[in-house]
């Protein structure tokens, strides 16, 4: 057996932050994660195995249906002790319990939209509203959008006035980093006045 010299007696204590990247198929989630991440994993997960936990204990393993889903994962090391993780939501099925796992403890979410298929964003918007997870809309486009387009998107998605709508180019690192900063700023803005009220809140 080889010797390990990696850890001292006290385990490392890192801080992490998680941002969820949602949006319909083909909106550019994979591209966005890839533009900023240090790693490019694509994960597989058996959706129903998780969905069944604690819900249908009486159902036998043999009768469970498992659906294999794939999701993007990205990491940015912001500081030796702070790691930012990005999770692309799998597919469009927001009723999948993986969405709950991804959202739990997340700082916020990006809903990436393609203006030609705005309706694909409805499910994600409804989900994050229900979860009370701070989110913004990022309109993925190749060219700079006229201001009225962002307003049209806000109108079409019936967004609350507090939800930011920003333009981005998912291929461009700087542009994606701006979106991530916008999410974090929005999350800061949405923090309750007293930090103590956060601790008891169901996320």
């Amino acid at each position, binding site marked *: *057996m*080889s*010797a*390990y010299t*990696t*850890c001292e*007696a006290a*385990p*490392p*204590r*890192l*801080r*992490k*932050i*998680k941002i969820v990247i949602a949006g319909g*198929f083909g909106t550019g989630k994979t591209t966005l994660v890839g533009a900023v991440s240090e*790693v490019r*994993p*694509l*994960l*597989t*997960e*058996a959706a129903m*195995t998780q969905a069944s*936990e604690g819900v249908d204990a009486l159902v036998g*393993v043999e009768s469970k249906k*498992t659906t*294999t889903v*794939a999701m993007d*994962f990205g*990491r*940015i090391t*912001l*500081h030796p002790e*702070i*790691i*930012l*993780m990005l*999770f692309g939501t*799998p*597919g469009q099925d927001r009723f999948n319990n993986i969405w709950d*796992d*991804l959202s*739990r*403890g*997340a*700082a916020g979410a990006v809903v990436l939209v393609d203006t030609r298929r705005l309706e694909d964003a409805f499910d994600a918007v409804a989900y994050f509203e229900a979860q009370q997870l701070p989110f913004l809309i990022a309109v993925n486009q190749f060219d700079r959008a006229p201001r009225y387009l962002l307003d049209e998107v806000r109108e079409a998605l019936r967004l609350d006035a507090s939800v930011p709508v920003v333009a981005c180019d998912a291929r461009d690192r700087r542009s994606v*980093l701006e979106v*991530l*900063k916008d999410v*974090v*700023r929005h*999350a*800061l803005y949405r*923090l309750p006045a007293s*930090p103590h009220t*956060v*601790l008891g*809140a169901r*996320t």
Partner: protein
Amino acid sequence: MVGPYSDAVIGAGGARLRPYALTGGRTRSDYPLQLDTLLAAHPVPADIDLGPEGERIRLLCATPQPVAELAFHLGQPVQVAKILASDLLHVQALVIAEHHDASHRPDRELLEAVLVGLHNL
């Protein structure tokens, strides 16, 4: 959407349970591990045999890794990685390397530190 890795790992249709051979057929982990749970290797007595997968996980976690990356490097579905990692947590060959309870949203101090970190990239 099905990615390139899922075909290799899961196979089509009937081969789905194959990865769970590594876990002795178990489909649940004993620890409430999340995709973003950070794991770090921890020294163990030399006479503990962790098996090849266990050794590999400990090597991967020489620098702390989230469960998500561990699964990717092992070429296994996330749930399989969680079960293998929980076995190592049991014998303290791995430890959870985090400050905060993952179920809580980040606080102001962390969000501000993240903003500075993003700005400095």
